[in-house]
């Protein structure tokens, strides 16, 4: 069930340059079905900004009834969000969409988790759940520069973790794909910039792979057709998938990215 809930902010922390970790109290955690789902946040009470902002759930705790998001302060909405302090309330719609299917990785297998920048957060809950289930995870996290790196420690506690930075200021210099070429794994889960997802899809087309896409959204629930992508099996036709309600996670090869 999707809820529209007024959620109290439990904590808000700056964890890297312009990167915030925000935890809220929310009954909607009971409806979260998979890691990789997202919520749609109304940042202001008035008209400025007007639209909600989609942000992934990066981890959640059913017992405590709270969940955490990690986001980059960027435009108007996320800047306002960053100014909110514990005790304040947020109007949140969620949980939305379909996340990463953890059942596609079997016990004893190795899952490669590839995150790029602000695509890293939803992989954290995924890594937790896969590990808990008995799947080995290898985490490859790409960032622009050292100042943007976050959650390396958290991921390391769950599995082998590699960090790449575009400018080489930390970890391996280069892209996540530079790291992956030397790794062994059974399946891939990824979230990050479209060029990264595309590269993965091309280079590992033989692997079972799940990709989380991003698209500008209106409604967030499947009603406005803002966030569609074409299906691979019918590229010119009228069939499509909606990132908000069919995704954001798709099996590689299902939709054109």
């Amino acid at each position, binding site marked *: *069930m*999707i809820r529209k809930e007024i959620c109290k902010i439990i904590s808000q922390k700056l964890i890297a340059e312009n990167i915030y970790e925000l935890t809220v109290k929310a009954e909607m955690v009971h409806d979260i079905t998979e890691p990789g789902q997202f919520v749609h946040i109304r940042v202001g009470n008035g008209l*400025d900004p007007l639209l909600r902002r989609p942000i992934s759930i990066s981890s959640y705790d059913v017992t405590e009834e709270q969940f955490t998001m990690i986001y980059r302060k960027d435009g108007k909405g996320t800047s306002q969000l960053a100014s909110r302090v514990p005790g304040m309330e947020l109007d949140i719609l969620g949980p939305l969409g379909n996340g990463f299917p953890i059942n596609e990785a079997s016990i004893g297998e190795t899952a490669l988790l590839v995150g790029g920048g602000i695509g890293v957060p939803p992989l954290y809950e995924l890594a937790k759940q896969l590990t808990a289930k008995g799947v080995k995870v290898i985490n490859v996290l790409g960032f622009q520069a050292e100042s943007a790196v976050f959650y390396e420690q958290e991921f390391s506690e769950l599995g082998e973790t590699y960090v790449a930075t575009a400018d080489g200021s930390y970890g391996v210099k280069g892209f996540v794909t530079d790291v992956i070429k030397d790794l062994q794994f059974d399946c891939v889960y990824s979230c990050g910039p479209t060029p990264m997802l595309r590269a993965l899809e091309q280079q590992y087309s033989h692997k079972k792979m799940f990709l989380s896409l991003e698209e*500008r959204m209106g*409604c967030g*629930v499947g009603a*406005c057709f803002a966030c569609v992508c074409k299906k691979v099996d019918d590229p010119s036709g009228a*069939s*499509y998938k909606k990132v908000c309600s069919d995704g954001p996670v798709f099996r590689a090869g299902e939709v054109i990215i």
Partner: protein
Amino acid sequence: MSRLHVELPGLSLKNPIIPASGCFGFGREYSQFYDLSILGAIMIKATTAEPRFGNPTPRVAETSAGMLNAIGLQNPGLEKVVSEELPWLSQYDVPIIANVAGSLEEDYVKVAREISKAPNVHALELNISCPNVKTGGIAFGTIPEVAMQLTRRVKEVSEVPVYVKLSPNVTNIVEMAKAVEDGGADGITMINTLVGMRLNLKTGKPILANRTGGLSGPAVKPVAIRMVYEVSQAVNIPIIGMGGIESAEDVIEFFYAGASAVAVGTANFVNPFVCPEIIEQLPELLNQLGFEHISECTGRSWK
């Protein structure tokens, strides 16, 4: 009879609150939030003869108190709407207003003829004003004679009353309204979106893949109110008003301007419960303002 009940050609509405076309899909998504039977009616997504994918993404961009969209009339096509969406909607006790679009006159005629046969379609809304499609749309909506002719053709084949949806992107909205009235329209719905654009600060390029898009939301309300005010004084057919409605107060403002019912679009994205909330708040607002029935508000600005 309820204080919110409104009778319009083909439409017996429990209340005058209607989700606007394109902002409510075919109802499935919002049925997760509330019982669709509480709505006055539902304006479904534009339907064309053939399925359409629409425009490339990004398709939406935010603006101050508004948004731009360039969906491009994506829809599953007449056949599927008639065979799947409308039957699904028939489980609810709510009249459907079918938004009809096309590129050529024949397209409109074909869709109108077929879709008007569906038992729960109580009226058509001729979309002659979509700013996001290359052919058809905009010419139909900006040249009075073309709009009149199209209305006439559609009226000939439709089994239900026909409302024509006007574009605000014209020099003279009254002229357009009179033309569709002369063409036999049973009512007018207005306004569709204003053509607008946003550019990406970093790249310099348009945010929307389609470059331009349609502006909706609270930003356009003053333009919509002005146009409803002008048109309602010039025609003798009812108006379903829309453009930036997000509260019961906004609904009353449209009634004062001359509307007999309203549609709510963009606000559904901001608050999925906006329609039921407005319906619930209206009686109390009527009390405060001293009206027995909402229809007393219609045209008060000029009557």
